[in-house]
């Protein structure tokens, strides 16, 4: 093997690893409205503030689907605890929506938003 290739190839591999592990900012970007977690959080907040529980339930479904999609993309570059934190936050949020608990839902929404923003930092 050529000498330059022997040097360059390992460096390229190491660089690739570094990119893979720091690519969370890229994978966090939504590819469309269906997987835009931040957008779905906002829609859900609007529905909760309006106490439109049917709309809130639909928004939660979309948020949960968007989050499940994002987990697959982010799992290699973020902490497991952050992923679990947001997943649990969404579960508690659903409970609050089923109980039509406006305060509880808003608290969990804020927590979910914080988890989302913390991902990859």
């Amino acid at each position: 093997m050529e000498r330059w290739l022997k040097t360059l190839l390992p460096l390229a591999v190491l660089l690739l690893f570094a990119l893979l592990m720091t690519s969370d900012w890229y994978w966090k970007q939504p590819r469309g409205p269906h997987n835009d977690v931040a957008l779905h959080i906002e829609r859900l907040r609007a529905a909760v503030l309006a106490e439109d529980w049917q709309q809130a339930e639909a928004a939660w479904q979309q948020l949960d689907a968007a989050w499940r999609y994002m987990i697959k993309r982010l799992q290699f570059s973020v902490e497991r605890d952050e992923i679990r934190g947001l997943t649990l936050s969404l579960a508690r949020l659903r409970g609050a929506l089923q109980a039509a608990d406006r305060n509880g839902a808003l608290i969990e929404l804020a927590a979910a938003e914080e988890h989302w923003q913390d991902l990859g930092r």
Partner: protein
Amino acid sequence: MNESLVVMVRGVIAFVTLLILTRVLGKQQIAQLDFFEYVLGITIGSIASSLTIDLSIKAFPQWVGLVTWIVAVIISQHVTIRWRVAAKYINGEPTIIIMDGKIMEKTMRSLRYTLTDLLEQLRQKDVFDLEQVAYAIVETSGQLSVLLKPDYQAVRRRDLNLVGPIERVNIELIFDGVLIEPNLRQAGVSSDWLRQQLQGRGIKDVSEVFLATIDANKQLYVDLYKDKIVTLIDVDDEPEKRVK
């Protein structure tokens, strides 16, 4: 989150990173490592395992930690090669513990090196009688180098003015059933010559040979895949009790 998949990917990253960076570290043998280098090795291994299975921390900071430690080792190696004072500080110095046949008790105490250690390491050097030892030196790796008194040193060929044959490392001609053409040229033989030699031993094809080497006197050593052993020797302590 598919934890098994993430662990697998992280494992591959840690493995390849270690593979690439430890190639830069060189080929120092375990026995040559001093205590500091030994601890460094354990730490690097521990970080690599953490990078693989500790999913509660992002992969990148752990990878940076792993690379940092290995780069630190590489830097310390370069410093010790180029700067003798640093080498003495980082690696320590060899210490004489038997001088002119006398055991240096104070030096041994300062090294936390016991008499039992000394006797054990002497025995490993096939020295069972302290009377034979002129000098013994504890190397930075902890190994003991021993210089025997002249009366107990082995006679060498040059002491008897005997000229021995020139030794050369054996060259592999067939490895795992494959003929290695460049080695034929290096050994100064042709493939036809080799085939004739093999046919003389009842071997029809190169693929039957597991290993064939040639020495400086063009003597072939050949080992076949099918070993024709007439009497099998069993080295088991209790062969009769083995379950067949």
